[in-house]
């Protein structure tokens, strides 16, 4: 027993001494596959590229608890444990669940030299921006304008926004809707605000999906083939995609715009083991099905999953900073790093402006170009968004 323990101890010690080849380490924390697997694939991509710390590589990957709100202590100690590794130079968390901020604070106290990157914060934005070196989130403000612009490019004359009161009580989502309304007015597109059951209410996900399956054909009938549809809820994307593909209408991109969201279930796309994290392949398979359904040129998404790009891209950005090749808050450097994992897709970014009107330069809101199946990229990221759409009081006059 004692011998076994001793030998185990030696193996571990030995492994950490002899194989530590990488000049520095990067820690990355993602969710497990039970939530959404894209970000985990992002971390695996980094491991593939730079190797595992245990094999002498650069990347140390851990997963966050599946029940983050109840196990905040675990998240904190998982993150803090990295401060212990003298070679650790950067920590990336995607999705930044509750506990990330506190974990970062503790790492900062112990090791001020470690770079702290947070993707998609679930905690108060101002709170995490106060600790992290770089925070990155989906740019819902710019997308308010860009989604309408994309619809216009596809020839839409009507934009249908499907949501429910709980979502509209979220500040950012209702602000995005207001921006959409304003943009529609400026472009001469009719804006239609429709309700759907909340999947978290008593009808459940199945009931809400059923509602959309039944209603969307009638809506397409009513608003015509040139109506673009959009829903704020991830669970509602699948029935919406299915009905738009079958009955007509337009679908620029989903709220959570990834080829793995909605499309596989709606169109029956089958993936194989080799497709995991291979986005060009995934897009190709989805595209085939979309064209097969006769929806070429009508439907789109982001060609590379957002959480995947954030997880891998932030890791890459960290590596480049440590190697002295990139600047921490340089927009082009950041976009470059994201681009490594999304070849061909454009990116753009803006800054988060907090409630006191302070521009948070370490809080970046990013968006990717929209890919329309059977047509190609829409060049959304090279569009200049007029300043007035960033006004907080938009649509409130």
């Amino acid at each position: 027993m004692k011998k076994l323990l001793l030998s185990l101890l030696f193996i571990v010690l030995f492994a950490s001494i002899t194989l530590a080849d990488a000049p520095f380490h990067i820690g990355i924390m993602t969710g497990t596959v039970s939530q959404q697997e894209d970000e985990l694939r992002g971390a695996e991509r980094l491991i593939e590229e730079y190797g595992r710390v245990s094999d002498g590589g650069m990347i140390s990957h851990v997963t966050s608890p599946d029940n983050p709100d109840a196990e905040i202590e675990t998240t904190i100690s998982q993150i803090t444990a990295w401060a212990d590794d003298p070679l650790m130079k950067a920590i990336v968390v995607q999705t930044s669940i509750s506990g990330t901020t506190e974990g970062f604070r503790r790492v900062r106290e112990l090791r001020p030299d470690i770079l702290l990157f947070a993707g998609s914060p679930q905690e108060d934005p101002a709170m995490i921006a106060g600790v992290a070196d770089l925070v990155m989130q989906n740019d819902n403000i710019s997308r308010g304008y860009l989604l309408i612009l994309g619809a216009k490019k596809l020839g839409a004359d009507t934009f249908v926004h499907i949501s429910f009161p709980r979502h509209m009580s979220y500040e950012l989502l209702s602000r995005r809707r207001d921006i959409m309304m304003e943009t529609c007015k400026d472009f001469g597109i009719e804006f239609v605000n429709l309700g759907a059951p909340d999947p978290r209410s008593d009808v459940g996900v199945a009931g809400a999906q059923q509602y959309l399956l039944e209603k969307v054909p009638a809506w397409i009938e009513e608003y015509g083939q040139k109506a673009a549809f959009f829903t704020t809820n991830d669970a509602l994307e699948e029935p919406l995609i299915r009905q738009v593909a079958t009955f007509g209408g337009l679908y620029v991109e989903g709220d959570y715009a990834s080829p793995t969201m909605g499309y596989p279930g709606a169109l029956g796309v089958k993936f194989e083991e080799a497709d995991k994290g291979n986005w060009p392949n995934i897009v190709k398979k989805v595209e085939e099905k979309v064209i097969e359904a006769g929806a070429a040129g009508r439907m789109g998404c982001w060609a590379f999953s957002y959480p995947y790009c954030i997880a891998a891209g932030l890791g890459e950005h960290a590596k480049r900073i440590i190697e002295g090749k990139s600047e921490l808050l340089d927009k082009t450097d950041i976009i470059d790093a994201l681009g490594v994992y999304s070849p061909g897709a454009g990116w753009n970014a803006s800054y988060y402006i907090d409630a006191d009107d302070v521009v948070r330069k370490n809080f970046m809101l990013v968006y990717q170009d929209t890919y329309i199946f059977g047509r190609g990229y829409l060049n959304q990221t090279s569009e200049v968004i007029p300043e007035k759409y960033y006004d907080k009081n938009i649509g409130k006059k």
Partner: protein
Amino acid sequence: MRKQIIIRTALVTALILIGIFLYVIGKEHKVVIDNRDISIGDITYSASTTYVVWVDNQEIGVIKKGERNAAIVTGVSHKIVVEEIKSNVLTGEKHEKRFRLKTNESATVNIPAIINNANEWIDKTN
């Protein structure tokens, strides 16, 4: 019996008083610091250079012209120090102001007004 009532009332009162005391000394206030143009009456003070700001001996950071930053302070009386910075070197020209905030008050401070010693350099709001 009466004695007991008196003791209890005194105890409760004392606790409430302690509570109020803790409230006052622990209350947080937000101080927004502007390095922007300001018009007071007919005079306009314009922001022209970059400053480093300390509030209660805590460095708030560099504020370029046209920018704003915010500080959180605790308690009643406070001090703000502003120093000009040129090409990353402090010029040594310091301006210091003291102010008091009542509970529930927050303040907006304007740097050009401080530099020019204008009376309305601070705007307290509830």
